[in-house]
């Protein structure tokens, strides 16, 4: 059964690689833009052996983790506040909505002006990418809390805070988790944008540098590594969360 699942999981990826291999073999597309799997694999192995790849992965991971954590803390705080006090949103809604629609890439010169070319600017790009889906999902989860269950808290004399962590929070958990997953995906995706700002390492840097150097084999290695590490992290967090939440809460985290 387990082996069976591995096969099912890898079926489509395997077919895609096969098509890629055959296409390259038959020269169906330009080798300059999409090199053959063999060449990409060779570069991949070289980069692993030299330790270059792992260095890029760690460097990006640490950036993304910091950015994601900050984004989550903000999203949680503001999302909870917005969910619990919907009337106050009018004060900051415009600014939040505005920022939600502005491409972080367009802000790079301003970020450099204010926050320099160090880690700060890069992390802000990641935060901007990850904040909003978490914010909106958390807000929705909190705001939609079942009123009937909340009243139970009222009749048990719960304080606002107690009602929050004993009823609202568990109830909103599936929404929060979905938001976190989406947010993590976006923070991971943002490394290209973040590492545009004067990075010297990281997977985004790897890809940008390879683009500038017209090294499409390295670009593909970069893309694969980003995708795979992203999936892996997602899985890891999923397992962790499933361990933490003992039963009762379905999470659609499949």
């Amino acid at each position: 059964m387990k082996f069976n699942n591995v096969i099912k999981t890898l079926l489509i990826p395997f077919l895609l690689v096969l098509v890629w291999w055959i296409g390259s073999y038959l020269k169906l597309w330009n080798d300059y833009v999409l090199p053959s799997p063999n060449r990409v694999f060779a570069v991949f192995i070289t980069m692993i052996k030299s330790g270059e790849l792992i260095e890029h992965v760690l460097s990006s991971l640490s950036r993304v983790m910091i950015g994601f954590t900050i984004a989550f803390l903000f999203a949680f705080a503001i999302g909870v506040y917005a969910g619990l006090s919907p009337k106050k949103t009018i004060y900051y809604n415009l600014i939040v909505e505005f920022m939600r629609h502005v491409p972080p890439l367009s802000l790079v010169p301003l970020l450099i002006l204010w926050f320099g070319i160090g880690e700060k600017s890069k992390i802000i790009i990641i935060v901007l990418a990850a904040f909003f889906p978490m914010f909106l999902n958390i807000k929705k989860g909190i705001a939609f809390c079942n009123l009937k269950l909340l009243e139970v808290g009222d009749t048990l004399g719960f304080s606002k805070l107690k009602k929050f962590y004993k009823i609202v929070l568990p109830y909103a958990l599936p929404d929060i988790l979905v938001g976190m997953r989406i947010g993590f995906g976006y923070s991971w995706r943002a490394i290209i944008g973040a590492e545009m700002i004067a990075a010297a390492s990281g997977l985004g840097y790897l890809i940008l540098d390879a683009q500038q150097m017209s090294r499409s084999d390295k670009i593909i290695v970069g893309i694969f590594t980003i995708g795979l590490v992203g999936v892996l992290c997602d899985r890891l967090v999923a397992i962790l969360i499933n361990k933490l939440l003992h039963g009762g809460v379905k999470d659609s985290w499949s």
Partner: protein
Amino acid sequence: STKNEIPSNGTSEEAKFYNASKIAVTYVKSPLNVPSIIEKNKGFFQQHFDEYNLPVEYSNLTTGPEQTQALASGDLQFLNAVGATSVILAASNGSDIKIISMYSRSPKAFMLFANDSQIKTAADLKGKKVAGPKGTILHELLIAYLKTAGLTEKDIEFISLGIPDSQAALVSGEVDAALLAGPAAYNIKKAGNMVLTTGEGLVDATIVVATSQKFYDENKVLVDTYLKAQKFTLDYMRKNYDEIVQITAEETELSIDAVKEMYTMYDFIMEITDKDIEGMKKTEQFLFDNKMIDNHVDITDILIK
């Protein structure tokens, strides 16, 4: 695409064949690509290709790598203004790309600015932070400038940033020096920042026109027409200075004075000279020495034959 026969105008030329349904070219107006601006404004390409009933399409692909990728994908027929550096990079990585003429040489338009009045010579850059776009003419300029003081890139801290970001980094004091070109350079200069050096004497700053060997082999007549149009544009520019300055100023939204001042930095002559080939060889060597390409490229091989 179809194989078309040129409608014969009665002259008894041998039939010329071509294999294209449109002429897609890149349109790059920065740093100050007056020929492109004038040509598009006046529709010179279209005039020349009307004879073949081929529509001319413009694509705003500004970065070198994107241009060479689009050429490789077959979506573009001509790269109207692409850095020689990008062509060499692409060729080194196995792309079918060939230079058909020169676009410009403008070493004076590429500049290195210092933030700090303490920095006056190349030697002063030691240990400093310098921002600029990697693997470009500007990068080459920096290395060549450092070399004049016996320094290499290792002696400074090079920070890879695009031109707008380099400018921001410079004015916010994040870096000690920045490599700039085009309007950014003009603005920074006007703001009183010190120009450490321009590219003059250091790099040739060659911008070229490129297509692929495959396209050339199948459409010799179209490439010739293209060159004819390019020549026509350059001639027109020579004869109508005031008008072209006016058009350029409107298109780039720069002031007339700025255009006039910057225009002097560019040398728009399409013939490929030996000096150009020497310059590109130097660039190739620079790329190889700095491990930006793994395979040598013979410059004479990437000129159209």
